[in-house]
């Protein structure tokens, strides 16, 4: 667990990103920047309808474009890859080239291959398709959508409940019954969705920005029916991910198929607009929240029901009620989640997938309850603060929600608030102040790491991911801290599925997961030079008690000021390395094996048997609405967050500012 990291001068030091200069000077190589000789270029053709079947391809004009090599469709290569396996929630998967079926607008239906990007794009624009079109159902309330109550249809699904919430709500002194909606949101990061594949014999290499290289490698291996150890994914830098690069998507396997088909590397850089339909997204939700409280503000009932849009076959859902049922003290809680199947692409992870939409519902309802009670919204949260979550009565590992509220309220100037509607005004701008709680499950997964030490410095090998959050730097800082050297003396190798396996860079779990694995490897590593130093006849530390030696300032230091520089010691002994597999609290012993197989288990949050583990925050905003034209502007946001131990203040600040 986290106490393995012993604070010293490096952890918590404001540290420049190791790759900062390369990034700002344009020298950094993202996967599609890596030179691949003799690559053919791919351009995707996507469906122009949202539901139906392809009845005829008209490819002649496209094939006639000079430089076109081939066009993959369901008719010639459709059986060479299986669909993406179902994601969270199970169910089935939408297909792409596997059949003539169109599941959603903008679905990948063909891949044009050409000698140049421009030729592939030109030919893709000339592909014509005849469809048998059916009327699509787009979203909530569209005729033809199917509503699935998860608890009635999925055995593994569990809706958190306690007490008799209906009765308590009916008997409530003060109640709120409100419905909320959250919109569709797309990540579409600055770095486009790209994939380059090449084969060397039966070995496949994939260059693709990824938040989980092991997962991408094993998924594509399954789709292509090849051994996972024949697939290598390389992703040293990711230019923004936000969840969109967490799971494999359909494009990757088709580029691998194309590379095999042509017998040469194939590179795809999907267009910006295609990023909205070939990748995942946050689906729109609807929620009904009912709260009942006594006149003292104490919650008596909390009922939270959600509806989430998904594709026709997939049960993907985020079920944020797992969190919203556990934030405030309340004896009677009832939740339910439904999936609404429409003719859409399957949604996926996006920035706090469950907690953002469902938290918006709960926090909005708490504000409405505060109004109904004529109570300050911060006070309402104070009254309903709890040390134990209400569903199972488990204690929080830490609960600093009110400390966050107090700190943020102070910084924001909340005490100057005049709560009368219309009381704050600047010219034609009506001004409102508001607040909300932040909560996010503190999660961690197993990870493996190798650390080597030589006269030149240290080297860390771990299949971690630099998605812009600063993982590269915190890995170097962790190893430097543990080995008594400077971060600049640590060379980090990450973003490659052949390195020791680490989990997803997702769910705010990555720093905790990977740094603990690296720290553990460092601890094992430290024993060896220590042993060498005290037993070697010639060294300055010969004969000292190994337990009293410490790594500090680039040297191994003992009693009475005796020290041996690491460079000298390692020069004498030769390089050394150590490998570690870290199994966090709540993970089964085989967790590292699961990570290697691409099926990691991230635990924490509300999923531990004995504890409940969350990070907290509080946010205050000033919102302006123009009295005449209704523009909504947010000129000021103040937040306070209890985010655990801050490894690098610079990148943590960037994260909390929304980066």
């Amino acid at each position, binding site marked *: 667990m986290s106490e393995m990291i012993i604070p010293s001068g490096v952890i918590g030091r404001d540290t420049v990103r190791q790759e900062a200069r390369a990034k700002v000077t344009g020298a950094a190589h993202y996967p599609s920047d890596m030179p691949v000789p003799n690559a053919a270029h791919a351009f995707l053709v*996507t469906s*122009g309808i949202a539901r139906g079947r392809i009845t005829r391809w008209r490819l002649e004009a496209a094939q006639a*474009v000079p430089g076109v090599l081939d066009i993959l469709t369901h008719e010639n290569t459709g059986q060479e890859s299986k669909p993406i396996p179902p994601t969270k929630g199970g169910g089935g998967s939408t297909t792409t080239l596997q059949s003539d079926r169109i599941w959603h607008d903008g679905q990948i239906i063909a891949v044009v291959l050409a000698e140049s990007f*421009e030729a592939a794009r030109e030919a893709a624009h000339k592909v014509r398709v005849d469809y048998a079109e059916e009327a699509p159902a787009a979203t909530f309330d569209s005729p033809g959508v199917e509503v699935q109550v998860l608890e009635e249809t999925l055995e593994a699904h569990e809706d958190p409940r306690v007490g008799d919430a209906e009765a308590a709500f009916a008997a409530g002194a003060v109640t709120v019954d409100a419905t909320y909606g959250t919109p569709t949101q797309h990540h579409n990061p600055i770095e486009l969705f790209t994939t380059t594949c090449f084969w060397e014999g039966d070995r496949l290499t994939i260059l693709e920005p990824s938040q989980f290289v092991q997962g991408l490698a094993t998924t594509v291996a399954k789709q292509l029916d090849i051994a996972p150890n024949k697939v290598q994914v390389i992703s040293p830098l990711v230019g923004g991910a936000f969840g969109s690069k967490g799971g494999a998507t359909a494009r990757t396997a088709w580029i691998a198929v194309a590379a095999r088909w042509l017998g040469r590397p194939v590179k795809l850089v999907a267009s910006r607009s295609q990023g909205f339909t070939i990748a995942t997204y946050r689906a729109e939700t609807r929620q009904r929240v009912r709260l009942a409280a006594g006149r003292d503000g104490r919650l008596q009932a909390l009922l939270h029901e959600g509806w989430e849009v998904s594709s026709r076959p997939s049960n993907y859902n985020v079920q944020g009620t797992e969190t919203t049922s556990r934030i405030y003290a309340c004896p009677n809680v009832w939740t339910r989640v439904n999936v609404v199947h429409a003719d859409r692409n399957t949604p996926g992870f996006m920035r706090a997938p469950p907690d953002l939409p469902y938290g918006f519902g709960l926090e909005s309802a708490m504000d409405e309850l505060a109004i109904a009670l004529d109570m300050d919204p911060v006070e309402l949260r104070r009254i309903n603060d709890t040390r134990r979550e209400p569903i199972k009565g488990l204690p929080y590992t830490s609960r600093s929600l009110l400390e966050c509220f107090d700190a943020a309220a102070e910084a924001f100037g909340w005490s100057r608030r005049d709560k009368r509607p219309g009381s704050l005004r600047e010219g*034609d701008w009506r001004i409102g102040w508001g607040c909300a709680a932040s909560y996010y499950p503190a999660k961690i997964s197993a990870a493996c790491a190798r650390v080597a030490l030589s006269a030149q410095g240290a080297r860390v090998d771990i299949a971690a991911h630099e998605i812009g959050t600063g993982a590269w730097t915190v890995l170097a800082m962790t190893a430097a801290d543990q080995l008594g050297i400077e971060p600049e003396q640590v060379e980090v190798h990450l973003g490659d599925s052949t390195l020791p396996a680490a989990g997803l860079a997702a769910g705010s779990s990555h720093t905790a997961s990977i740094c603990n694995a690296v720290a553990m490897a460092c601890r094992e590593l430290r024993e060896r030079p220590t042993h060498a130093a005290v037993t070697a006849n010639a060294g300055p530390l010969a004969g000292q008690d190994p337990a009293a030696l410490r790594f500090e300032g680039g040297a191994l230091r003992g009693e009475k000021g005796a020290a041996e520089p690491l460079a000298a010691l390692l020069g004498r002994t030769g390089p050394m390395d150590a490998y570690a597999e870290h199994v966090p609290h709540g993970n089964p012993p085989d967790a590292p094996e699961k990570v290697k197989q691409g099926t990691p288990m991230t635990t924490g949050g509300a999923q531990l048997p004995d504890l409940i583990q969350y990070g907290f925050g509080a946010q205050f905003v000033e919102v302006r609405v*123009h009295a*005449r*034209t209704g*523009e909504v502007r947010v000129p000021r946001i103040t937040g306070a967050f209890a985010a655990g131990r801050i490894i690098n203040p610079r990148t943590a600040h960037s994260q909390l500012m929304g980066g």
Partner: protein
Amino acid sequence: MRPFTYERAADLGAALAAGTVPEAARQHIRPEVQYLAGGTTLLDLMKIDVMHPERVLDIRPDAAAQPVIRSEEGGLWLSAVASMAQAAEHPAVRRDYPVLAQALQQAASAQLRNMATLGGNVLQRTRCHYFRDTAFPCNKRQPGSGCSAIGGVTRLLAVLGVSEHCIASYPGDFAQALIALDAEVEVLAPEGPRRFPFSQLHRLPGDTPEIETTLRPGELITGFHVPTLPWARRSLYLKVRDRESYAFALASAAVALDLRDGVVHEARIGLGGVAAAPWRAHEAEMVLQGQELTEACAGQAAEAAFAGAVAHDDNAFKPELGRRTLVRALMQAAAMEP
């Protein structure tokens, strides 16, 4: 790959920058050529298969050339190859025509304003999603194929000047200011230069939405003449959009007022974000003329401006937003102390 020829007309670029176009430049004026200056629209549309010129003639002036913006007989001359940023920052533009400077400043992003030229800006094509996505029929892109926007997503699209064949909105800002100020446009035609009111440059879609301007093939805009209008110091451009910056207008108003003792002697109103082409709201101006500029009077003018609005589903909010935008712009202009 789609081949096209690229030519650099350095002498024409230099002439445009200097504000004088010699006879010799006429050789460049010919049909089937797309002129390239800033390239901020043309290159995008070529990449997404919407425009397919066979020849591209680059008229960008030399980097060292400072395209002319100068006072001339009866007004101000703005070279067509001046960048949006250059015009927006010009002291005479800022001082004498705030509506012009503000319309330019609120358009696009700083990077685009540095690249894009005034001539290209007034000719920029619609942002209608269906025009830009070749998977959909579009009468503007492919005459006679149908309008996918009608019955589709229309939040950005027009409610004034639309037809049953096209409801695309004109996306620009600068043009609303030009039309309000009674500017003129000068073009180089095969038979020589001609100058005409800017309000005659654009055409409404009618049943030929593919024809957007009255320019004949090969004609080239060389610049704009903005007449002297001392009271235009009381003018402004109000742009209402979802996002504070780098977004197209949902509704905008270019307003200039000749206000004497609270009474409107003359009013000029251009409307953007709501119309199929740069839009002059003459009916609204007539309502205001000779009246005391009160909230009620501004409201009546706004009613007149949108009397002919035709909305489609998503953009049903636009007549109301457009009216409110105009009222706000008029009241703000009245409160100015020029």
